[in-house]
Every structure is written in C-alpha cells, then in structure tokens.
C-alpha cells in the first residue's frame, strides 16, 4: 500500500526524526498509486499501472545539507537512511544561500481528495475510454486519447516542528479526433480532482464536432487579427508567463518582469485593466495544497490586479537579501473572467479568428516573453458574429504580456488543462485584438 493516512504518516515521520542528531532535519513521505490508458486509431494502444512509496531525509549542519532516500520501512532501514544523510551533509559543500528550516504553522485544509477518483480501477478506466471510442466511431472519425488517474499523498515533518500532510486525487482526459481523409481534426481536454465531473462522452462530442467542422479549411493571409482563444489555448499561452512571476530573476535583470534601469515591475500597470490573476488553493473549482515544503501556509495571493503587477514570489533567501517578506509561489493559478459564454464572444466579434488550441509554444525572446507556436485542431474564421468557415493553421509570434494588453473581452472562467504540462488552471475564453500570425501551416 503506497498511501498512508495523516496519523500513520505522522507516526512514521516522528519515528524517523527521533533518530536524527543533525542541527536540522526534515523527513518526508510521498506515495503515488494510479494508472493510465492510451488509445489511438479507435483502439487501446498502451496502458500502465503504478504504485510507489518513498521516504526522504534531509540533514543539515550549519549551511551544509544533504538528502538520502529509501523505500524500505523496517527500523534498520530507517536508521540507516538518517545516518546516511547525516554523513553526506558533513561532506557537502556549504551553500551560502541555505535558509534555516521553519517551525510549526497552522494551515487549513483544502478539498483536494475525492474518494470516487481514488476508487478508479483498470476496468473503469477502460470503460471511460470505450465510451469515448463509441462516439468517434458513430461520427466516422478516428480517436487518439489518454486518461490518467493519480491518488497521491505527501507528508513532511521537520525538527523545528513543521508538519504538513495532504492527499489528493486527479484525473485527466484528452482526446484528438480526426476524419478518415486527414483533413479535419478536433480536440478536447479535461482535468478534475473529482472523476464524477469527467464526462468522456461530452468531451469527445466536442472534439468530434471540431474535427468535422474543421475539414477542408481555407487559407487566409497571416497578419494581425482579433482572436478568440478558447480556455485550452489561452491556458497554454499564459502558462509560459506564470513561470516568470519571480522577483529574483526580475531583480537580476533577466526577465520580462525586469525594469529598465534596475529592479522589477512591481506596481507597474503592465496589462489591460480587465486582467486579474491570482492563486487560491481554497478555490472550490481548483483546490490545491495549502502548504509547501519550505514550511509556508499558502493562501490567496494576487499577482496581477486590474492589470497592475501586485506581487512577485520571493524565495526566503531573496526576501532576506531584499529585506521584504518571503512570498512563496502558490501552486494554482486563476484568471478572472466575465459573464459571456464562448458563443456570446463569437456573436460580438465583427471579424476575427476562433482558436481552439495552440501547440508547440516555445520562448523566442526572454526579454519581451515573445513566444512562438501554432494553432491546431480547429481554427475558424468569424465574420459578423458568426463562424464562417474553417481556416488553415497558422504560426504566431506573440508575447502574452502584449496579448493581455490587448484584451477586448473575457468570457466565463473554466477549469482547463495545459496541453503540455497537464496542469489544471481556471482560465476564461478571451477575445484579443491584434494577435500576430506570421506564417501558414499545412498541418491538420
């Protein structure tokens, strides 16, 4: 059994900590149980099932620290792993940036664990996939997809008295449907803590509709267009920006958050006033861990408020150096939206492009956060509030910072996953002016 409850985890960690003789010691447990199915050409291809539990011990002498880990849990092994980490720490080079461990904190729990998700079996996974394949067969399409569920826990205890425990469940599903001729392709992706919210039939229907609707696309000239990014497209674009919400790289002058002349852009009006981006592990639609392994309780943090840079994360070391309070980077990201549905956003668009998904986004220039990538799996031309016809995919070169300056309208927030990291976010569909496409692609 790879998963321990709070009491059993704490008892085991206390037992291990009692063996420590170092200046500081931190012990942690991680357990994962889960499985996945991949399918393609309307049939299962590969599948897996995994179960792991491991214990890590970090011992510290002065500013010298080291890890050791083990996956055996008898007393001899537990003593051995503590001793090993202590021997290693004595030999480790000193880290001038080492910061002392933090003590006990109070933190509230968030509802990251759902029993029904933990109860997923190889058979129920196969059943969810079977339903998706049925939809694609009915639509005379070919599906390739992926479903994965994970049931995890983590627990940390240190010699200063900090104890954190969290268990969570997660299920992700994505499907790409293509027509027989290879001229149309559609996609849908979902991610939830609660498997009861996952409807593989409804998601596959959307992908099928996109596949059939995107067949025989016309080419239009690349250039600047008003675009409506669906949440899955916007999420992937913005994920590349969220990673840069860090004070140190900004202060060091090597981030889009760096201010010319020195310092960072905190307090600067960097985006349109409609833009609000924050973290909140207690959000009911995106619950997340409420503490981190550095010993901080996590709560709501506003990063961008009405377009202004409100906060950047500060590591303990950097906070001390800059004489400010440390601000951990929270684990989830939420962007506020409006009340409009996607259909209403389309209806309000005179001339523009509906982008279902973006693909292979990579950083071109760290200075301006210029990104390049392509549209994929359903790109449509809009005229006078209506989708007129599917268009060929295009490459863009655009910065999410410039993009969020050009926000025309935001729709209703949805839980969406990044197509690259599989991480979940709450992001609205958004209408953006002057989005820059630079070339055409023949890819379907």
């Amino acid at each position, binding site marked *: 059994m790879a998963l321990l409850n709070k009491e059993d985890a704490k008892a085991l960690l206390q037992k291990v900590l009692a063996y420590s003789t170092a200046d500081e010691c931190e012990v942690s447990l991680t357990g994962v149980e889960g499985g996945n199915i991949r399918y393609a050409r309307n049939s299962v291809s590969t599948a897996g099932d*995994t179960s792991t539990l491991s214990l890590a011990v970090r011992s510290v002498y002065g500013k010298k620290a080291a890890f050791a880990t083990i996956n055996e849990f008898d007393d001899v092994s537990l003593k051995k792993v503590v001793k090993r980490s202590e021997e290693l720490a004595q030999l480790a080079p000193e880290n001038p940036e080492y910061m002392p461990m933090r003590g006990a904190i109070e933190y509230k729990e968030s509802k990251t664990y759902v029993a029904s998700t933990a109860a997923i079996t190889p058979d129920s996974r196969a059943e969810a996939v079977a339903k998706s394949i049925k939809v694609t067969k009915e639509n005379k399409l070919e599906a390739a997809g992926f479903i994965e569920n994970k049931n995890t826990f983590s627990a940390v205890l240190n010699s200063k008295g900090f104890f954190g425990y969290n268990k969570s469940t997660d299920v992700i599903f994505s499907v790409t449907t293509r027509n027989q001729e290879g001229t149309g*392709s559609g996609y849908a992706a979902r991610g939830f803590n609660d498997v009861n919210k996952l409807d593989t039939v409804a998601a596959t229907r959307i992908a099928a509709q996109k596949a059939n609707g995107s067949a025989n696309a016309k080419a239009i000239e690349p250039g600047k267009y008003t675009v409506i990014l669906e949440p899955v497209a916007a999420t992937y674009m913005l994920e590349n920006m969220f990673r840069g919400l860090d004070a140190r790289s900004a202060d060091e002058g*090597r981030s889009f958050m760096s201010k010319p002349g020195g310092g960072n852009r905190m307090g600067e009006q960097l985006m349109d006033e409609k833009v609000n981006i924050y973290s909140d592990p207690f959000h009911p639609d995106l619950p997340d861990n409420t503490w981190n392994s550095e010993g901080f309780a996590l709560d709501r943090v506003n990063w961008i408020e009405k377009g202004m840079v409100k906060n950047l994360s500060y590591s303990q070391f950097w906070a001390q150096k800059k004489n400010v309070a440390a601000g951990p980077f929270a684990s989830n990201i939420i962007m506020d939206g409006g009340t409009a549905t996607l259909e209403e956003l389309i209806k309000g668009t005179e001339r523009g492009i509906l982008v279902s998904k973006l693909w292979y986004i990579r950083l071109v220039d760290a200075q301006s956060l210029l990104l390049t990538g392509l549209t994929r799996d359903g790109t449509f031309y809009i005229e006078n509030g209506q989708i007129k016809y599917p268009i060929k995919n295009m490459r863009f070169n655009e910065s999410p910072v410039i993009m969020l300056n050009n926000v025309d309208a935001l729709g209703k927030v949805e839980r969406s996953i990044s197509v690259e990291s599989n991480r979940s976010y709450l992001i609205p569909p958004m209408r953006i002016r002057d989005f820059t496409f630079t070339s055409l692609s023949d890819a*379907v």
Partner: protein
Amino acid sequence: MNRKDFLRNTAFGAGAFMIPRSMLHATPIEIQAALNGGMDVATKKILADVALAAAKAKGATYTDVRIGRYLNQFVVTRETRVQNVANTESFGVGIRVIANGSWGFASSNNVTKEGVAKTAERAVAVAKANAKILDAPVQLAPQKGYGEVSWKTPIEKNAFEVPVKEKVELLLAANAVAMKGGVNFVNSAILAVNEQKYFASSDGSYIDQDIHRMFPNFNLTKIDVATGKFESIKSLSSPVGMGYEYLNADPSEKLGGVVTRYKNRYDMMEDIANATEGVKQKIKAKSVEPGKYDLILDPSHLMLTIHESVAHPTELDRVLGYEANYAGTSFLSLEKLHSNKFNFGSKLVNIVADKLQYGSLGAVGYDDEGVGTKKWDIIKDGILVNFQAIRDQAHMLGMKESHGCCYAQSWNDVQFQRMPNVSLQPGKEKLSVDDMIKNVEKGIYIIGDGSFSIDQQRYNFQFGGQSFYEVKNGKIVGMLKDVAYQSNTQEFWNSCAAIADESDYRMGGAFNDGKGQPGQSNAVSHGSSTTRFNGVNVINTARKI
C-alpha cells in the same frame, strides 16, 4: 533545497531542455551508493524468471521484464557558488505482457520475488481489461532469444567515479573566466547518467546493459541595466554517450573558424572564454533585417532542425496516428514511402538512423524490447526510403524484424518507439566551411541551437540560434541578433545546396526528446557537417513590452 527549487534553479537557458523528465521522479542518493554495483545479475535473472512464470500462469502469451537502476548526478553552480550537488537513484521493475491480444504494463519498486510476481499479475489484469476495447490483437515481429548477454557503453572514465570536488572546481574556474570577462550571470553544470538495465523476455533473452551519458554545459547572460536589454549564449558542448573523458580537451578534436567548435572532446575553459567575448558582441550586435537569406548552419545548430523536421516525422507511430493526441502525426505517409519517389530533399540529402554510433546518446547494444541494434537509411539521395519501427509495428511496413529503437525512460514507464540517432551524412566532395561561405552573397551563419517550434505534422517550423554572423559577398562582416528562420520541411531540405565534407562532421544532441502520454524523455544525437540552405525566410524577433 528541495527538488522543486533545484529544478527551478537549474532550469536556466533552454529550461527543461537541460534535465530529462526521468530524473524528476528519481530519488536522491549519495555517491557511494551510486558506485556499488546494485543487485547482481544472478539475482535479477531469478526475479525475472519469477515474473515470466507468474505472467504466463495468468495467461500472458508474451512477457518482458525490465529491472532497472537509473543513476543521475547533477553538479550545479552559478557565479562563485555551488547551487546543488545531487545523486539520485531510481530502482524498480517494469513488466509488460500480452494477454488476450492486448498490451498490459505494471511497475513497482518492490523488487522481491513476491513483488515482481504481483506486478506481473497486475500487468496481466491491465491487459485483460484493455482487451475489451481492442480492435486487433498485437502482432509482434519474431525475435530470437539471445540467451545471457551483456553490453556496456565504451567509456574510458566513469563520470560517477570522478570526485564531486573536481567537477565543482572545473565549473567554478569556468565561471570565474566569464565573471572576470564582464558577464553578469553564469550558470554551469555537469550532468551524468548511468542506466543499469536488465532485460528478460519470454523469447529467451537475458540482457544486462550498462549505459553512460554525460553533459557539461554553461549559460552566460550579459545585461545592459540602463536599457534593460539582456542577451545570453550557451556552451557549444553536447550531451554525449561517453564517460568523463569527454572533458579531456584535445586539439585534434577542435575545429577553428569564427569560434572554436568541438568534436568528441570538449574544452570548457576555452569555450567559456570565447562565449564571454561572444555575448558581449551579441548585446551590441545589429538587429537583423527580415528577408530571404542563404543560411549556413553549423552542426551544433542543425542537429535540432534535423531532430524536429526529419527525425520526428519519420517515426512510424506518428505516421500511423498513435501520437495524434499529443506529439502529433506526420506529413509523411505509407503511400509516400511506398511510392519510392517522395522527394524529401535535394539529391545531396542522405539521412541515416543509427543505434550503434560511438559517442552518441542513442547507442546501446539492445533496445528495451530485446532487439539487437543496427543502422539503416531513412532518406537516400533526397528520397524517403524508410521509417523507424519497433516489434509491434514491423508488420505494418512489411518488415520481418524490428529496427531496434524501442525505449522506456525508466523501469516505471512502458517502452515504445523512440527515435534512434538520426543524422545527415557529410558531403561526398571535399568542401570546407570557408569555401561554402565564399559563394554566399547575402547569408547568415548560425552556430548553436536556440528557440524551436514545429507544427504537429512537421511542415512549418521556426528556429532561433545562439550566435548569428552576417555574411556579405563571401565574407563574415559581423554579428546579428533577433534572428529566427521559418520554413516548410520539404521546401527547406530541397533548398539544401551544399554540405561540408567528413572533416567537419560533428554530433549534437538532447537528453530530453519528449513524446508519449504520460510524457517520457529520450536521449538522442544528431550528426552533420556544416550545411547551406539557400533562400530561407528570416524574421526579426525583437519586441517591446
């Protein structure tokens, strides 16, 4: 420092390009543990036989067992200090079976007789659950059992045996050169990988392999505080399938020119001195005028273009649609292959797949489904002639055996078709880089790989680079910045106008070629000589925020 911080701090420059995903799941250990031999081969064979029998008893018609110990070492520094030294180990077993015609896979870190038997049973249960949604049973190309065999990367010096102190001293000495030279930031690292893989299958193979890779690298940043502008340049080292001998600088392995470039031995101290001067020039360089240019691409750059535009679209699983939901499909097809006249590139273009090449990241004796490795043509005189296939795909190409390019990033992941080393063959006529530049009226000479992006069928791509030199009327006239080129794969390879000869041939590579769901990393090399492509569209990437 916890692992998340460690990864964040080491993710400089090309970011995740630096650290294989497999390492993210590994657990830290001390160096002494890395140097002991781990479980002996005789015990592994006993455990493998337990797993094979347990799977068969539950109804498996084919089983393979991989007992793997994956060791990684990171020594990471910035400026004057060590950021992290980590030794990680991941040990466990992955069992793959065919039951009721379907694949099933399960893994566990409980490598005992009871543990492997249970894992084998779980794999069969997964296969049987999946068989209910299977269209056609798996067809495996026949593979003879090799009996008990072994293979080891031909290294001269195990990187794990070199004291951490020696590595730290090298990196800090290199950093000091850059700081003294006036750069603002320098990150440097040495990564070492050792895969100790034991494979057994119901075909009668028991294969023990010891695979080594390493990657020394740095990244420099120069900042102009007043304007807020910054530029970076990274090292011209490559990740290699070698031991620590890669760091034994050797004049016979160097190529002169606008900047020194390296073959099978690397000189970090020299390269960082050159890069320090390079980044200072780059920040002052002229911003490129967009338009058509002849591109002269160094192997340190071209390797990534080969990777994305040739190696990926010739993966058979992509061609057939197995990767449609993530990495994508391919503009190539079985029809194009079977036509024997699909014009992938100009007549100069010869591309080979190779799992044997010395010093390459992809070199192994046997792949992860027990097939002996080999070398084969993919593009011959510009024409598409083959794809990359494994045992359950061979029949789709009408082949009787696999190409031997099946790989899993760890015991915990299921093996599937992964790219072998895919390389452009050098020009047959004698031709130096200088001679190639002499004939260029308006061109850009690009060294080092940078930003990269390509569509899901591998038609439209865009690449940046590290150092860009403007070529006017046959001469290099200075550095450029803000350069990226966009093209279409088939047009681009048909614009290939000259390839330097064998004396210029070098390999580049990546530790983290990503594919699959859940995502897995594959280490792969790509070789070439410097190559010219005529009339390619170049854009300017400078923007203001």
